[in-house]
């Protein structure tokens, strides 16, 4: 088996025992990127020299016998809405083309402190607004399972990179499902930690009360190790949780779900879900029951308003956050013809620099926040948030974790929903409630839908600060599924023909 197919935790032990060097591993990754990326467009930028320099450094330290962290030497991909000193950061937008940030996101600092070579910056829907990467100003990423389909969004660059062995690990950001939906449609693992568990400093803000950085990986243990590496309090983020949530790596070593109460969310099953998705989901539940878990049904009636509330709160916050792209401090500046005031320069720059979906959401957010409409729209949406939290609190009285399919369908075709924004928004039905409530969620691959042979994801949710529960149940389900298949999820993926 090639090193490319190894999981991050296997690579970590191989590196620790000097079975392989970080330079060898990083070179192999970069070669595979050079081979696949021109077709898949997973990366916007590949940082060959930087990655190899970092790999050389960690190898030297290891040779000297320095104490290194668990993931030292394991390369990683970084979503391009996280700032990186010296590496162009565009957030998938034309307005930031060529921008080289003077500061690192805290999670990037952490990755560097753990001495993980950075392979490059991955593609995303412009400013993370979208579910398919089709809103990227630099073209969509392709799904390695079927090149005509989306790898999900907004973090489709990270999911397609990890699913096609162009990186063992990646960082994502999740505002309404941008880590979990791409994971579900590419057969990978994606975790949105509890709001505040991971610093948002240096994450180019979309919806500040919803955004959370998290791991994109090929299995539960890798995700746990990566969450442990990036989590923790940060003075630069006032919403950062002061307390530690404990070790996810320890939680992922769990091997029993005996007595665990798993709540099926009534509103997120059955009608509206593709039959192959429901089938694989049910099978996963049966495995958990056979392993001693108890299934209870829970109801969250206010979830029916979650998408509506989200598409008021998020555009409202985005319209305010994106005001910083004003042609003055960074990014594009377009000079209109004739004598222009700074306001006219700003408007011309934003017209040229923003894509259609970004403009739509800024206009929608401006409307939701305008006087006379504020209470009816933004105010009501914030009240729905209260109702959703109350429903979840009640559900978690009956169950330790909640479960549903991550998405109603498998990966859709590129172009299929691009002209219909409302249809695109409906993908997020199962993922959005976690962001509105600030709770953690994990998407785990549970097999292929029988009608199209494409990956299906199951989503687990836990109460705020109880991220460890996700890793405990995820690790057990993953083991049962892999025993049943006698291989891992990505071993089902078709061989990529790129030439």
């Amino acid at each position, binding site marked *: 088996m090639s090193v490319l197919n190894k999981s991050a935790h296997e690579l970590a032990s191989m590196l620790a025992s000097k079975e392989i060097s970080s330079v060898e591993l990083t070179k192999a990754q970069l070669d595979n990127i050079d081979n696949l990326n021109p077709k898949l467009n997973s990366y916007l930028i590949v940082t060959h020299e930087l990655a190899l320099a970092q790999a050389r450094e960690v190898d030297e330290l290891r040779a000297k016998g320095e104490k290194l962290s668990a993931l030292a030497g394991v390369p990683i991909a970084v979503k391009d809405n996280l700032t990186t000193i010296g590496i162009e950061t565009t957030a998938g937008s034309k307005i930031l083309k060529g921008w080289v940030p003077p500061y690192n996101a805290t999670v990037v600092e952490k990755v560097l402190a753990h001495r993980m070579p950075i392979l490059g910056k991955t593609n995303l829907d412009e400013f993370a607004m979208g579910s398919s990467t089709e809103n990227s100003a630099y073209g969509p990423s392709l799904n390695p399972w079927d090149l005509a389909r989306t790898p999900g969004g907004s973090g489709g660059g990270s999911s397609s990179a990890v699913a096609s062995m162009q990186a063992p690990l990646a960082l994502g950001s999740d505002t309404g499902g941008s880590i979990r939906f791409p994971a579900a449609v590419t057969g990978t693992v994606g975790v949105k930690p509890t709001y505040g568990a991971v610093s948002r400093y240096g994450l180019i803000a979309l919806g500040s009360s919803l955004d959370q950085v998290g791991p994109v990986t090929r299995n539960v243990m890798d995700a746990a190790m990566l969450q442990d590496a990036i989590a923790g309090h940060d003075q630069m983020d006032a919403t950062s949780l002061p307390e530690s949530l404990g070790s996810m790596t320890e939680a992922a070593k769990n091997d029993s779900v005996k007595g665990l109460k798993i709540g099926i969310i009534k509103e997120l099953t059955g009608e509206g879900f593709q039959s192959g998705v429901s089938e694989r989901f049910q099978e996963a539940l049966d495995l958990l029951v056979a392993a001693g878990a108890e299934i209870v049904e829970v109801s969250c009636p206010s979830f029916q308003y979650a998408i509506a509330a989200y598409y008021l709160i998020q555009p409202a916050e985005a319209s305010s956050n994106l005001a910083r792209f004003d042609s003055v401090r960074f990014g594009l500046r377009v000079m209109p013809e004739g004598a222009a005031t700074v306001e006219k*320069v700003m408007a011309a720059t934003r*017209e040229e620099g923003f894509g259609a979906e970004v403009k*739509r959401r800024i*206009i*929608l957010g401006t409307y939701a926040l305008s006087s006379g409409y504020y209470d009816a729209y933004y105010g*009501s949406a914030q009240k729905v948030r209260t109702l959703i939290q109350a429903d979840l609190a009640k559900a978690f009285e009956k169950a330790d974790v909640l479960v549903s399919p991550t998405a109603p369908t498998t990966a859709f075709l590129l172009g299929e929903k691009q002209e219909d924004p409302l249809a695109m928004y409906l993908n997020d039905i199962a993922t959005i409630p976690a962001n509105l409530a600030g709770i953690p969620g994990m998407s785990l691959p549970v097999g292929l839908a029988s009608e199209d042979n494409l990956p299906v994801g199951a989503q687990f949710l836990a109460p705020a600060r109880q991220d460890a529960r996700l890793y405990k149940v995820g690790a057990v389900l993953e083991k049962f599924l892999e025993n049943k298949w006698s291989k891992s999820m990505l071993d089902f993926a078709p061989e990529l023909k790129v030439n």
Partner: protein
Amino acid sequence: MSEITPELVRHLAGLARIEVSEAEVAQFASQLALIVESVATVKAAVSDEIVATSHPIPMANVFREDVVKPSLTQAQALSGAADSESGRFKVSAILDED
């Protein structure tokens, strides 16, 4: 019957400092009309006695020690600017001539 008219879209885009073409105004007006109709369902879901939640995990009085820490240099802060002069961001005229 929709409250999202082309005129309103033009007005909102103006508030958001985005120049929009006539084609965009027409497209956004019809798309936003559908979106607004759909998100307006939140109005029916709530009542006066429900308290609004602005942050999922509220935190109050977040302080840190008042100590000087390294920060960006002036050159770093200006490094991404389209134009600068004498260590400052340079912009076009703030006010119209007339």
